[in-house]
């Protein structure tokens, strides 16, 4: 069975079949189409206005590598400037290699790079220290919860540091599809009600965030990196990914094998889910410590750090958080810096 001719240029041999349309394209035409689609998503979704200073969350992995590369190619047309922001979580052995990959990319593409470290931002807490502290709880899952919350905060801080007006992250269609599957399986109606869009507009003083690759499947992201010869860091984090996400990812890959459009079909479902008003989270207010957006008295990051600093890491996740807040109420707000350096 010989490969068909590219359906676009009609000259080269096709290298792949696109999951969304079933069309067979050559590598070059596919990459052009991929870039045009990201451009289209940004424009039609009105994600990044002209003149935006965009902080690209760079991890050295495939998604952020492809995002940075594509946006760099589109920057003149979009009239935006880019700044890579990488987060050093302080994970020995793993993060150093990933950061090296980011530094290499920044140098090669001549993009400014800023690295922000958990250790500096969060009063000496590295992810390795967090892991040691939570080891008693015996669950790697809590590690990912901590890391996710802290990384979000760190990226926000890093973006402000470089004077960014917008933050972009490399989440792709598979991430969204996995998330909607997981939220149903875990019964997280609040997240289902909030999810589905291409980003958040930046309520409560937070920088607007968006995901320009959200309509591109993982497979296409990887193929784009392959045909554009992009090098990325592909080792798994030493703290194994959350088991539950593993289940969802496995399911998603099987669904995709049975029907190539399944990933986008799930994204469409997520865009269209309608939940009862009671399932929607309350309007967020400001964290009583750091002023960041929070649905409760303390934002997630402050709550986590507070738990860590008191040697009760589990307080901050799940039901523990509510107990924490009951205590918090009479204590009055403490300036963020004090709270962080007190220990």
């Amino acid at each position: 069975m010989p490969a068909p001719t590219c359906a676009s240029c009609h000259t080269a041999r096709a290298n792949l079949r696109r999951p969304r349309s079933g069309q067979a394209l050559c590598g070059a035409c596919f990459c052009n189409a991929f870039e045009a689609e990201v451009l289209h998503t940004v424009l039609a979704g009105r994600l990044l206005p002209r003149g935006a200073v965009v902080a690209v969350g760079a991890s050295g992995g495939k998604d952020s590598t492809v995002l940075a590369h594509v946006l760099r190619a589109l920057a003149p047309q979009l009239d935006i400037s880019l700044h890579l922001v990488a987060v050093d979580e302080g994970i020995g052995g793993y993060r150093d290699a990933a950061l090296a990959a980011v530094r290499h990319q920044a140098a090669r593409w001549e993009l400014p790079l800023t690295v922000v470290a958990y250790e500096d931002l969060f009063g000496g807490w590295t992810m390795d220290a967090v892991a040691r502290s939570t080891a008693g709880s015996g669950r790697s899952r809590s590690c990912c919860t901590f890391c996710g919350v802290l990384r979000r905060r760190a990226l926000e801080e890093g973006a402000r540091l470089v004077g960014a007006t917008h933050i972009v992250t490399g989440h792709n269609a598979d991430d969204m599809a996995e998330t909607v599957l997981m939220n149903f399986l875990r019964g997280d109606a609040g997240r289902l009600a909030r999810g589905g869009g291409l980003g958040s507009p930046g309520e409560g003083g937070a920088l607007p965030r968006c995901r320009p690759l959200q309509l591109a499947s993982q497979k296409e992201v990887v193929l784009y990196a392959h045909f554009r010869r992009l090098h990325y860091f592909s080792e798994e984090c030493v703290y194994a990914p959350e088991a539950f996400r593993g289940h969802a990812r496995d399911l998603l890959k099987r669904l995709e094998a049975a029907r190539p459009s399944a990933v986008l079909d799930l994204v469409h479902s997520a865009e269209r889910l309608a939940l009862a008003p009671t399932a929607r989270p309350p309007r967020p207010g400001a964290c009583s410590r750091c002023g960041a957006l929070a649905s409760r008295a303390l934002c997630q990051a402050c709550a986590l750090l507070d738990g860590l600093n008191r040697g009760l890491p589990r307080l901050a996740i799940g039901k523990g958080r509510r107990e924490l807040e009951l205590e918090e109420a009479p204590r009055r707000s403490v300036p963020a810096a004090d709270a962080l350096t007190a220990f």
Partner: protein
Amino acid sequence: CRDCFKALYVHKFRAMLGKNRLIFPGEKVLLAWSGGPSSSSMVWQVLEGLSQDSAKRLRFVPGVVYVDEGAACGQSPEDRAKTLAEVKSVLQNIGFPWHTVALEEVFGLPPAVLQGSAQEPVGTEEAYKSAVDSFLQQQHVLGGEQTHQPHTQDSPGPCSLGRSPTATQTAALCRLFDSVRTLTAKEELLQTLRTHLILHVARVHGYSKVMTGDSCTRLAIKLMTNLALGRGAFLAWDTGFSDERHGDVVVVRPMRDHTLKEVAFYNRLFAVPSIFTPAIDTKAPEKASIHRLMEAFILRLQTQFPSTISTVYRTSEKLVKAPREGRAAGPAGPRCLLCLCALDVDTDDSATAFGAQTSRLSQTLLSTPPAEAGTTTGPGCVAGEGQACCRAACNYVHRKGVQAQVMEQLCYGCRVNMKDLPSLDSLPPYILAEAQLRSQRDWVMPEVQEYLIEDSDSEAEDALVQPPGARLTTQEQGGENTGTGL
């Protein structure tokens, strides 16, 4: 223990009906019975409910419908005849009026099946109360006769739509199903046709409710399956207690609190008869369809995390039957030709999953760099025809072809499914006829409306007329539904 289990089981069924207050006294209710355990258990619940003493007695008037899907599931004529004989003997024992129809009969359905009824379902609290009151009064007048049957009831026994299917119809059905490329699309098509057929039977015989035997296990699986099929907008209709999308005939799911395990136990303990018939996916490998994959996944996860199904089920109760905030298409908007839900598609090219698949960027192919994207093709041709309004509607419709005509009348999920049919020509005539009818009407309507009101979609349409190159470089342009969640 056995007695408590039975009491609980019966209570769940009656509580589900009681709390939703949708079934009116004396109302004709069609029980969709597949022969499988859950729907058999449901029929049994109704049978027992009707033989209770007067205080607890169910007060609606049941009938049973059985759809013979043998042709779509590859059963031989002999096996089908055998199954049907078994079905009839069970139905005779039950003693309700019953209707057996072969799936082939979809080839004789009128297009009207797909025309939503203007009649709103009567379902308000007020209406329910007054109906109950008048029913009780009537009972009182009649002296509370135990054997009283409302005069509207069909006599017990068969009232089949009729004839056994012709060989031509059977061949047409087999041809249709054989042509479908994936098991996923076959399952969906079967479900669609079955629903239309049951709807038709209900209307012809004056039933205003249809009860299906979906268990909580089945609904959790269905919810996740439909999520993966792109039916996120319709989950509340597809899996909720009641489904009012058809207007005059409401589908209700009274078994939705029962798990498959409970059903199996009950049927075993109380000797509820059921009939095994091979389904379309029987023996298919797990990876053969989205349905099978999701079923296997959920059941496996359930053994690992025993709360999986109840979690999914409880989450589903928080879904509402309204379009998502900021999304167009209210109940009055156009309906999907096949599933009859409000269309959930965005404008082409919008920054959504739908836009990503309809985008001319991915449909027409670019050998040119992004800035010049699309200039080589003529994407404005459809809109261009819109300008040439002198052309007759039928001319337009004719040229568009069946494929395009049907496709544009479909919701997102049904479009994806129909892509797995090499040709839509083999669909039953009522679907094609209705598609053509709507297509012609859609052609005429905008022409008329242009003179009546300023079209709110005009901005989006302007964008369509422009060459995509221009659209891509201008920040302000873009489809209407593009700012998703921003």
